[in-house]
């Protein structure tokens, strides 16, 4: 099963966990990204995420394909949030279930690393005195 969503409402760790439960699973690894209160020592107030949604879903689908082919995962759930997020809120959750735990760790880490490189989602850091699109400038 793959459960891939871009949502404009708060994400829920339990939901992603529940989406990958399976009697053949020996391990589930869940990665939960959270909005940090600072970046490079500068205080962050909020993060704003926007996405080119149809393509984001397609690119996350490609990640799921790789997880199946390379790690033989049972199920994957990827939820990404858009809109304005406060400190401590969750921009992304990735849950993966596999028969053996090592594959779940590797697959989950590959998924978040790749998501950050390929999925068309953009993050703007909102500081007290301005905003910055993350990674936009060299």
């Amino acid at each position, binding site marked *: 099963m793959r459960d891939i969503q871009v949502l404009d409402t708060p994400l829920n760790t339990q939901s992603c966990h529940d989406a990958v439960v399976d009697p053949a699973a020996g391990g589930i690894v869940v990665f939960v990204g959270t909005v940090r209160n600072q970046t490079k020592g500068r205080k962050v107030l909020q993060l704003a995420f*926007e996405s*080119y949604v149809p*393509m984001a879903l*397609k690119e996350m689908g490609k990640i799921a394909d790789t997880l199946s082919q390379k790690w033989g995962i049972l199920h994957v759930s990827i939820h990404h949030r858009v809109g304005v997020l406060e400190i401590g809120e969750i921009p992304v959750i990735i849950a993966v279930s596999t028969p053996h735990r090592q594959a779940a760790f590797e697959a989950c880490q590959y998924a978040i690393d790749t998501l*950050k490189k390929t999925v068309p*989602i*953009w993050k703007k850091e909102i500081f007290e005195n301005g905003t910055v*699109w*993350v990674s936009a400038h*060299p």
Partner: protein
Amino acid sequence: MKIKLIAFGIAKEIIGPDESNLEVKNPCNIGDLKRILIIHYPEFKKIQSIKFAVNEDYQEDYFQIHEGDEVVIIPPVSGG
């Protein structure tokens, strides 16, 4: 020919929030479009890297754009 440009993130701040129609010579590939964009919007020179998507897939410089195609400007992504 006319193509439709859509932008996100910092690219949207550069070309403006609305879809913009751009008149380009035919044939025109993604590499040509990139050069045209930088002439129209010199701000793009300051961006780390720009990619393009057509039909929801990344396309390389050699990809031929067709009349009516919707071309999406993808500045460096930063999800997660």
